[in-house]
């Protein structure tokens, strides 16, 4: 394919790859990616990050999710690698870009780990996924607005930022390494996100995070952006993740060997039916953002998409689809009513959000 188009964005070629080798206190992380394809956001320079890290050095970490006094948290992250690839459409007509995929790899340091717990326990990884939601904007709510245009309505609405986690699954990849994977569907103006996590120590976790921005004309919200399918971006991500090899250091291997996970037991964290319902409304309400419907007056018209279309999209989006190497996959969502126990996972998330 010489040129791409909106329906089929053209990314980097998979012919020439370069190796990324990172040494994290003896643990060797290795992957192959195509070289950077500019332009991509905020000056990513893959060579500016060092190749060796001492995980016990506090200097390399920053608070995960940024400084925010309102959030109490003990989750830190160190960036170890970052790269991005531009996706193009028709030359000149679509300009220099119609989207991009940005990938980062970081080490998460969980400093408030309970005694005798370890990230090598699957249940702790599930806790970490929750922690990622509560400490970053991913699991937060934003201010919504009313249906009509009454300027005197002072009701304050709270709408979720993202529908997450979706398609949660446990995967086994190269070298017997276990990953937990989940996706986030943005509801307003965040990019689509994909998370891959694997433990590399009692309190350290390797997180590979991908996000997809789609820069389309007349599509300023996640629903309208669906016009340009995400498949090509996702393919590139999966190809990259297939090349990832994590070789644990000796001490980390010993740590891993000291922890026994119950055979065949895979805990999950999923979005709830309430969140799905809220997401349908939020996505519908924002579906006029940055979008002009030709049949409506530009000023003062209602440019939102039909409610049913948005609901159908969400219903289709939350369906689980296993990736290669899938060990176990969660349901599309969990219903709160069926799990009245207060300690159950979904309610814990709902409360924390």
């Amino acid at each position, binding site marked *: 394919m010489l040129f791409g188009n909106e329906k089929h964005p053209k990314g980097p*070629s998979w012919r020439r790859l370069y190796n990324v080798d990172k040494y994290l206190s003896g643990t060797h992380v290795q992957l192959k990616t195509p070289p950077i394809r500019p332009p991509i956001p905020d000056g990513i320079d893959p060579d500016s990050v060092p190749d060796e890290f001492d995980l016990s050095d506090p200097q390399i970490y920053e608070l995960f999710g940024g400084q925010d006094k309102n959030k109490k948290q003990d989750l830190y*992250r160190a960036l170890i690698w970052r790269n991005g690839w531009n996706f193009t459409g028709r030359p000149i007509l679509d300009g*220099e870009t119609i989207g991009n995929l940005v990938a980062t790899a970081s080490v998460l340091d969980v400093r408030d780990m309970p005694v005798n717990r370890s990230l090598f326990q699957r249940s702790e990884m599930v806790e970490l996924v929750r922690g990622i939601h509560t400490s970053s904007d991913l699991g937060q709510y934003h201010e919504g607005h009313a249906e009509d245009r009454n*300027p*005197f309505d002072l009701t304050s609405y709270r709408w979720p930022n993202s529908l997450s986690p979706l398609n949660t699954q446990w995967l086994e990849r190269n070298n017997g390494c276990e990953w937990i994977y989940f996706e986030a569907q943005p509801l307003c103006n965040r990019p689509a996100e994909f998370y891959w996590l694997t433990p590399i120590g009692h309190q350290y976790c390797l997180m590979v995070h991908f996000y997809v921005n789609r820069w389309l*004309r007349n599509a300023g919200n996640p629903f309208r952006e669906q016009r340009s399918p995400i498949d090509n971006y996702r393919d590139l991500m999966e190809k990259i993740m297939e090349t990832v090899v994590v070789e644990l250091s000796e001490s980390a291997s010993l740590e891993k060997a000291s922890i026994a996970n119950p055979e065949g037991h895979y805990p999950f964290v999923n979005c709830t039916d309430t969140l799905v319902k809220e997401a349908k409304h939020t996505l519908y309400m924002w579906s006029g953002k*940055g979008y002009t419907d030709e049949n409506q007056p530009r*000023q003062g018209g209602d*440019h939102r998409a039909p409610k049913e279309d948005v609901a159908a999209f969400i219903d289709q989006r939350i369906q689980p689809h296993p990736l290669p190497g899938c060990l176990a996959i969660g349901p599309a969502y969990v219903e709160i009513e069926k799990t009245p126990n207060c300690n159950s996972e979904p309610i814990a998330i709902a409360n924390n959000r």
Partner: protein
Amino acid sequence: MGQLPSALPPVQSSSALQAWGSRTSGRAIFANASHQQLLDNFRQLSTQQSSEGYHAQTLLKAVDSLRGPASPVNSMLKPNQPTRRLLVAGGFEIEYELNSYYGHCQTDVEIVDIRMAKEDAREERRSALWRIKFDQQVGWIPEEKEPRTTLTASPAQKGNKESPVKVGVNGHSRQLKYAADTLSKHISRGDKGKAASLQNSGFQLLYVPSTNSAIGAEWVSIKSLGLNGTDEQRVASRILAQHMLEAYQKGLYIEWTAHKDGAWVLTEAMRQLTTQRIDLQRKQKIFLSDAASSHVVADRMRHTLNMDTYDSSWHNTAPGPAQLVGGTHLGVAPLLCLVDEFRHRSNADEKFGTAGDLLWQAGTKGLVVSGAATAIISTAGVPMSLALLGASILIASLPSARDDYFKNPGQQLGSWLARLRKHN
């Protein structure tokens, strides 16, 4: 838009005009009953400590500004209607007429319509001021889901001399998010250190939506030699003028950065302010990046308004067709700016220095680097300068990273070649 909330019953026959508010000085404002009701409701709302309260205050202030002797900076003639005027702001639009009932020069203001435009601004179909933040995980995104009605300092940018408020004005852009990303590069001037500190402080963006495609937007400024904008840009310039005036009244230090057609919006806003004889006391400064409108006009305006002009560089251009025709007048803009400097702003002692500078510029920059037109006139350097000019236009027109910040055409060509190499 323009419909009133149905919950509000009209007090009297809604066509009768009545004076609204107390008339202590200035013109009287006449409005029909439903608009009066609306304004009274806003007056109540304006006492609330909330974003809606601020919105209401902005609206009331705007209505009161109509009482003044001169037209407010954010007013404009309604297109195709000679007497009807529009007062535009990020969240609303007031249509009014100036009447002279008694044949005197003292006129009254008749409010024809008040239209709420908050929804349109929120949905990015109308220009408005947004706060942009850097999210560690996903890059530059709007901080809030609603635009701001007023220009205020943020905790990280206090608006004093040491940390001025940074505001960007975008040119053609397909989305708010895209504009935020592009402007972040231009506000940090392609400098890594500045980019890092901008990520901590965030910035504000006057988002100007565009109805055209990228090529169409470029053509508007070429066709008009960079002297005219689109309807959206005209509205945006009034909103920007209001924010500029607001910053002046609050004494904030502001750094405005305009990208491409955004330069026209910025220049036009400055022109609105010049009619009010405002002295900005060097508290605000501008930077034009790849400007598609005239540097010369912008330069005159910033001197008239007494903006901060101490920075040696206040524009940066990777010359594409629009930038060349509209922005630099085919290369003579630096010379024209110097001529202005020489004629109007140099005292006798400085004249020699400026004249020397002028000659030097004409000799070096004018002829060799950027001054194609002067070069053609003086014929001596035609082949060389034309070749350079042609090359730089060609480089800038390559389907490459035009939205990035480039320090010179060489850098631009370099990055394009690097991309080409990586593609294949």
